[in-house]
């Protein structure tokens, strides 16, 4: 780890000013990902601007019935918040499915969205990696990609986004708010992550030096019946190999509204809009659910060793939507 400067910020504009658009500077939130990456040498910032003291640690109801979540709200506080649990139970479940109690106490909402992939090649600085060193190559395509992306990847990078929280946020149309030296801005989470293409090192649309200040969830009555299900290689304290956030509203046996997003299958939380289109207005039965999953997964491009994810996601869609349909009609 190289030597670095440290500044603590106490207000948003001060934080942005301290960082001053310096490409060698980073905002420090909970540090659960950044400090680890600094230890492995993936990140070598010259300056850290600590944003944990910023007054962005509240979860508030918006007048229209949504929620505004401050960027420094910890995962723990988010998952414990009564309104999150009541209005968006899948979000609470997603957060609780991630990491450990200790890490959830440290990690922040803003940092969660910006966390880096857990691809083993990315984390190993002795290995080539197009995301870490553009143009150096992607060993995962020919090498170990058992837990890599099947959707939206490219020959240049097949890494996945590791977030659980982000999957639920994607399902519920979250909007990311940020601050730059030129003032505030916002962008829907759906547009927040850049396509992988030939530039996997460019991950989000955030302007240089921008600080995420919060996430807004629009009202979503459908989310009251929602669920997050995560499959991983041990029962807890592991990243997903496939996960799903789903919300379902059924009326007269037909799907009135549905939200569906996948985790651990793409470079970003994957909103399954093709599946949602098939589902909306269709009978709420296993056949429809399977057809919807197939519609979404038709675009999947599995590599030799991660094709199971297509089967897994298809099964998860059917299983979780079936459970929700039962719950919704109870």
């Amino acid at each position, binding site marked *: *780890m*190289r*030597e670095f400067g440290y500044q603590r910020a106490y207000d948003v504009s001060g934080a942005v000013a301290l960082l001053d658009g310096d490409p060698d500077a980073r905002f420090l939130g909970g540090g659960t990902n950044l400090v680890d990456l600094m230890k*492995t*040498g993936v990140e070598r910032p010259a300056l850290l601007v600590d944003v944990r003291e910023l007054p962005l640690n509240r979860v508030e109801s918006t007048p229209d019935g949504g929620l505004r979540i401050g960027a420094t709200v910890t995962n723990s506080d988010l998952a414990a918040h009564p309104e999150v649990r009541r209005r968006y139970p899948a979000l609470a479940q997603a957060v609780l499915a991630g990491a450990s109690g200790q890490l959830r106490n440290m990690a922040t909402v803003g940092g969660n969205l910006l966390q880096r992939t*857990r691809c*083993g*090649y990315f*984390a*190993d600085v*002795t*290995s080539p990696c197009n995301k870490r060193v553009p143009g150096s190559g992607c*060993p995962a395509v*020919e*090498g*170990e990609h*058992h837990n890599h992306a099947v959707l939206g990847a490219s020959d240049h990078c097949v890494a996945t986004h590791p977030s659980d929280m982000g999957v639920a946020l994607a399902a519920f149309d979250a909007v990311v708010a940020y601050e730059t030296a030129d003032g505030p801005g916002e962008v829907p989470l759906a547009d927040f992550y850049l396509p992988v293409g030939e530039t996997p090192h460019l991950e989000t649309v955030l302007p240089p030096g921008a600080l995420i200040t919060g996430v807004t969830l629009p009202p979503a009555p459908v989310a009251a019946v929602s669920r997050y299900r995560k*499959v*991983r*290689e*041990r*029962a*807890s*304290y*592991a*990243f997903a*190999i*496939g996960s799903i956030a789903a919300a379902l509203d059924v009326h007269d046996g037909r799907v009135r509204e549905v939200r569906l997003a996948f985790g651990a299958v793409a470079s970003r939380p994957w909103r399954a809009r093709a599946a949602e289109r098939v589902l909306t207005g269709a009978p709420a039965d296993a056949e429809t659910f399977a057809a919807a999953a197939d519609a979404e997964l038709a675009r999947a491009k599995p590599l030799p060793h991660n094709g*199971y994810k297509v*089967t*897994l996601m298809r*099964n*998860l869609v*059917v*299983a979780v939507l079936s459970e929700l349909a039962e719950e919704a009609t109870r």
Partner: protein
Amino acid sequence: MTTATRGAVGTAHTRVEGLDKVTGAARYAAEIPFAELAHGWLVLSTVARGRVRAVDAEAVLEMPGVLTVLHHHNAPRVDSDYIGLLGVPPDPTVALFQHDRVPHLGWPVALVVAETSEQAREAAETLVVHYDREPHDIAFSAGRESEAHALDGHAPAVVEKGDLADRLAESAVVVDAEYTTPEEYHNPMEPHAATARWEGGRLEVVDSNQGTSWVAGELANLFSLDPASVRVRSEHVGGGFGSKGVRAHQVAAVMAATLLQRPVRVVMTRRQMFSLAGYRSPTAQRVRLGADADGRLRALEHRSLSQTSAVHDFVEPSAAAGRAMYAADAHHTASRVVRLDVPTPTWMRAPGEAPGSFALESALDELAERCGVDPIELRLRNEPEVGPVSGLPFGSRNLIACFREGARRFGWAERDPRPGVRREGRWLLGTGTAAASFPVMAMPSTAAVTAEADGTFTVGINAADIGTGARTALTLVAADALDVPADRVRVRIGDSDLGPAMIAGGSTGTRSWSWAVRTAAEELRGSLVPGADIPPEGVTVRSNTAEAVGALAQKERHSYGAQFAEVAVDPTTGEVRVRRMLGVFAAGRIVNPLTARNQLVGGMVWGLSMALHEEAVRDRASGGVYGADLAGYHVAAHADVPHIEADWVDDPDPDDPVGIKGIGEVGIVGAAAAVANAVWHATGVRHRNLPIRPDRVLLAGGRA
């Protein structure tokens, strides 16, 4: 009222160092403060095969706090041409910085020493090492058996009895199946750490290891020192499991401390442990069982292939697992190794038996299925009278008692043998069983027991308590031999100055040390005149068990166990959850039921973890382990481990003074097979490749 002083052995005692462990007062190797301490950081090769062309040390020496950079041009010479305490030459990996050859990825090429660990780390990461890279070969598979050679390890490589082809040909049922297990890593919670310094003309090393006599002897040999001038201490050890012998960190620390003439500490990072701390080789095993229609074996063949490094031979003797288990007219077992450009594997909890029992005990389950015989009944039908290959008598063999007691407690009698017919929500349920065994050995050790003037007793025995509860067990053994309450006995361990003793390994520690302690304590007790004053310096009696241990008659001495598991499998996601496990063991006299139960359960947790989680994947292109950390290499976490019970049947070893056999390893043996057999029972699908990952279950399907 009389005070009960007899019978400490066999009753539950909390650990004598327990208070220190729950308050954080227990200091482990990297936690002893030293004035003027410098910090060393190892630099490992980034190529899997080749030569070090140059080490750009100059730039790094300019960095803040950097004291020295050791590498093959400037490091002290060491002598690795010797046979150590365990009767084997050292892995050349410990002959640090002696030449420019790189035989595997993660080979130590330099040590950077600095005033602080932060400075050492940054300098080590900055150090540029130039290599001449050569093509490497790390591809282990069953297909490489033709390139392999048979290798005797702690068990002979090849043992053959009877005509295999004939017996197979005349068998009514033949099971012929291949099994694989992946690279597995010990990953003790405490990383390897050592601090070396010269003090009063002696080399002192504070280390985390499984035997200070052993490590001190290796260091004396390596550095050509008088053994009396080397002292190694290792009071508290945060787990070992076979990985904590002499390793690069101690050697590096000694080199730097010698050159700098100040204390130097070297601690492995978790990532470095995947290159430097040893591991269990992957195995590719083939088992052929020939049996009569009623399941009586005529032929048993078990072949195992494992890997070793290009510089040192080590064999995972998986095929030896069945040599004392089942009778068969034809009994052929062979363990072979193929040399690859990988680090040398080493002993890891139940070396041989753990992967070997997975294959053999899975194959037994397949045979039971084919014959339509209950798996426990199948094992009863194949109980040998004497060693199936050796013909030697058994010391004590209570496997049947374990199965009977286990079956009763597990509720085996109610089991429907049909696979894939029990469902609970999204889960398919199944149960499985397997047998366990592990060799029983004793090794020579010395001990000293002192009657102190204040009426207490001090035991000096160079044992290692790596979490086994040895310190407490030896206290109880000494108390009984001295006929005093346990609280009057103080046991000192983990210091090579205490004299030679067996390491904590091979499930031999507590047996070997107890023998020596009991011998000295009994002699001391006999020599003390009741009521007589003890002089201020105390009265000390020493023992050495070499002769007594050497006089043991040849027998088949083993501990045994019956493993049971119940699993739930979601065939739509591939998730497997173990719902309960039970192990009933015949493992000699149990010295401390509280810690023994914990240790046996711990072994079973290892079996669960091996069955479902543990797997290191070697990247073909780089030659190194992909995801070499505890997020990439999964060991079972709390949520994976259900309520697990371990218990035992009465089984004192007739040839041991205390009746001890050893319990450190038998708990893992057969446990993975029990889980795999339960997965078959749940789903109807055999999983012959570990770990039983979700993707494997998912793609294999099941009777959903």
